[in-house]
């Protein structure tokens, strides 16, 4: 188990810069997720930590030691690849034992640890089979067993769940978190799926266009986004251009069209100053109400329902208020508002965040 530190790391492919200067510190034992859309440099970053790519600039430290010049086979990392990368010509047991053969472990010890690892991933009886005889989810577990049996300093996973179907993915999510918790290994997990990141991580590193946008706990990046990109990538947000009038000890007061003044809690308005500012209204926090409903304690505006996207427990509305459209995701207990109906859209000021304009 070790910490991972990236110091001013850069990766260029020819004239194209895939990762711009980035700093990152990962604490020992943490589960950290690199989250961002496809092509934002997550895999490139992970492969630099792994030693599969050389950084163009900067330093990588694992357990406090600079590893830039340490080849991959001496880094003692467990890697789980997106396509599993199980050796098709070796049995499951031989796959899992592979890394132990390079670690001065006796035969008996190898057998014992392979069995232990297969138990940990809850597939104790498949050792004699070949990878292609297993289902996708089972192969995934074997790939994980193979990576952790060597007791790696850091576990690296590149979109390990994306090849699984939706139900299995949710099971594996829980499973993976349980195993990581049990062995306590420092883990770097790559995904483009925000719900995966929110559910599993101790900390999330949101990336975009080869840059780190924000680092924080799931709760922090979700509730206190530091950029428009983060606000939109983690769930849907409505972003309103406004002006910051006043910054007090408790709140920063924003003035936005349609809703008037909104007192945003200070901790959700970090980094803004007087002058232009943006108000972030999460779609889940924007509630549709009957046009005559009591809205005491809330900030509201009149709106018309344009589109209703019914999803069972929840419904996603697109409503028009003034000259713009808003997105709202609401729980429903009876029937959703029909298209064309006149409603109020309302929110509480403490559910908002503010960004520099």
């Amino acid at each position, binding site marked *: 188990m070790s910490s991972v530190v990236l110091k001013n790391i850069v990766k260029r492919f020819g004239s194209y810069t895939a990762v711009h200067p980035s700093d990152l510190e990962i604490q020992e034992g943490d589960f950290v997720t690199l989250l961002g859309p496809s092509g934002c440099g997550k895999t490139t970053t992970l492969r630099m930590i*792994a030693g*599969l790519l050389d950084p163009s600039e900067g330093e990588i430290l694992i357990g406090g030691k600079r590893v830039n010049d340490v*080849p*991959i*086979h*001496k*880094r*003692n*990392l*467990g*890697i789980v*690849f997106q*396509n599993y*990368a*199980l*050796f*098709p*010509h070796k049995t499951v047991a031989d796959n899992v034992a*592979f*890394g132990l*053969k*390079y*670690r001065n472990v006796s035969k008996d010890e190898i057998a014992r640890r392979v069995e232990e690892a297969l138990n940990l991933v809850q597939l104790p009886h498949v050792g004699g089979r070949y990878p292609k005889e297993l289902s996708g989810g089972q192969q995934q577990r074997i790939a994980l067993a*193979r*990576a952790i049996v*060597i007791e790696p300093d850091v576990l690296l996973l590149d979109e390990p769940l994306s090849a699984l179907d939706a139900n299995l993915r949710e099971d594996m999510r829980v499973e993976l978190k349980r195993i990581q918790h049990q062995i306590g290994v420092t883990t770097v997990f790559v995904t483009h799926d925000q719900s995966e990141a929110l559910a599993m991580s101790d900390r999330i590193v949101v990336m975009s266009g080869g840059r780190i946008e924000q680092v924080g706990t799931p709760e922090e990046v979700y509730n206190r986004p530091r950029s428009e990109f983060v606000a939109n990538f983690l769930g849907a947000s409505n972003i309103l251009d406004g002006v910051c009038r006043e910054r007090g000890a408790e709140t920063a007061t924003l003035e936005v069209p349609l809703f008037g003044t909104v007192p945003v809690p200070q901790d959700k308005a970090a980094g803004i100053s007087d002058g232009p500012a943006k108000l972030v209204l999460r779609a889940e926090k924007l509630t549709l109400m009957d046009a005559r409903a009591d809205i005491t304690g809330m900030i509201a505006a009149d709106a018309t329902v344009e589109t209703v996207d019914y999803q069972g427990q929840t419904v996603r509305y697109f409503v028009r208020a003034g000259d713009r459209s808003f997105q709202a995701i609401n729980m429903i207990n009876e029937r959703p508002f029909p298209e064309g109906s006149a409603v109020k859209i309302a929110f509480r000021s403490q559910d908002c965040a503010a960004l520099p304009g």
Partner: protein
Amino acid sequence: MSVEAREARQPWILLSPALTAVGLLLFVPLIFIVVYSFWLRTASGADQVGFFLDNWQEALTDRFYRDILLSTLRIAAITTLVCALMGYPAAYFIARSRGNKAILLLLLMLPFWISYIIRTMSWINILGVSGALNTALMWTGLISEPIQMLYNEPTVILGLVHFLLPFMILNVYVSLDGIDQTLEEAATSLGANRWEAFLQVTLPLSLPGLAAGGLLCFVLGAGTYITPLVLGGPSDAMFANLVFEAIITQLNWPLGSALSLMLLAVLGLLVAIYNRYLGMAQLMKGLG
């Protein structure tokens, strides 16, 4: 007719022109050869029609034929081995190169645009008494008289390797290209260095391609008569030269037929063994 029956019939309808061509051009002549091998060439030079076992008896009992068959198989085996040792690294290089794969493969095909006979004869201009190599060595003063380098077994093998190497490279390339590169990455991440990762993962997974290339080199090498004719000496005749000799020089079709069927049987057995263990599909991948 049911839909299934029609669907089952369709491939055969589509294949029928090809099957007809193969039937007429391959199987019919083959039947002629089988029939011929039981005829007898009389002292007068005319063929006597009938069912005689004389040719077969001569082919199977004469030590001369046996020795040449064995030396043919030996030369084919050495050629195959050399092709494997030279071809594998080349195929690996092509499979792992990033942008210019297409150009490298095109370069590999380039020799096929020139007749195999001409390619073989080109060695005379390189290794012959007044060839490039002798001229160069004389010029440097290392030798004062030209050396005869041609017309021996090594030059026959050289010519065969020159002819067959692309087949080996292509077959190995196809199987290497199909191997997921993350497998090697996974192996190195688990502690194997690059060489160990190659031995543990890439090499075993590419063996089918190596076997297919080997079979092709062996069968084509063992069946050739041009290379020994052009680059070999009088004692370097291979089995196909005997067939050539019997049919073209002596006009003894019955004996030539028996000899060619003998070679066919030996090579056919080899293909059958290969097919039993690895299947023809792999060979087809490398050819297409």
